[in-house]
């Protein structure tokens, strides 16, 4: 894949949602989030820096995640993002709405 922003082609806010979901399983740094998404989507989703970091900033701005400097598994300095309770709430709420939208679109696309 190239460095493209595929994820946000679906609906606005998709990327934020995906990032929140990926944080459910524990705090991660930026690169780890990218890897997580890639792996769980079976190599379809690859998020580039230019999309990832602004999205992460948005999470911080809205208080859905918190950031802290720590050490990565390779002993390098890295900034870890952690889900906040507000973030958890956001994920739960948005996810339902998101699924509804996608399902609705799918209905349209499946119609004959």
């Amino acid at each position, binding site marked *: 894949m190239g460095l493209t922003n595929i994820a946000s082609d679906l609906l606005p806010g998709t990327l*934020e949602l995906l990032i929140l979901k990926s944080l459910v399983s524990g705090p991660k740094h930026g690169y780890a989030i990218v890897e997580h998404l890639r792996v769980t989507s079976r190599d379809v989703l690859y998020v580039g820096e230019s999309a990832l970091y602004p999205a992460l900033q948005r999470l911080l701005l809205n208080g859905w995640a918190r950031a802290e400097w720590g050490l990565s598994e390779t002993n390098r300095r890295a900034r870890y993002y952690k889900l906040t309770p507000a973030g958890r709430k956001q994920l739960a709420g948005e996810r339902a709405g998101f699924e509804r939208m996608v399902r609705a679109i799918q209905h349209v696309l499946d119609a004959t």
Partner: protein
Amino acid sequence: MAKDRSDVLQGTLDMLVLKALQLEPMHGWGITERIEHWSEQVLQLGQGTLYTALYRLERQDFIRSEWLVTDNNRRARYYSLTVRGRRHLTASLAQWRRMSRAVNLVLDVTTVS
């Protein structure tokens, strides 16, 4: 984040409009109706959004329009898919399926990686 209003992205909207025209040509209002009906009223298209999309699609030569007389004897602009449009629709549909499947995978995973 997407709410119940149809906060759909440009690309997705274009795809929906093309899909609506896949069966038969339609006028603007009919397209809106069709999409709203098929999505069980979840997706609501504003006039402005719709006509911007139609203009965009026409400019890219995916659809064409002509003036026809409707059933109740009124003149209306009917839109129909071009060959290019059909091809673009097929490609978009494939892309969409891939993407939404991927996103679903991510959103549904519950095990810790």
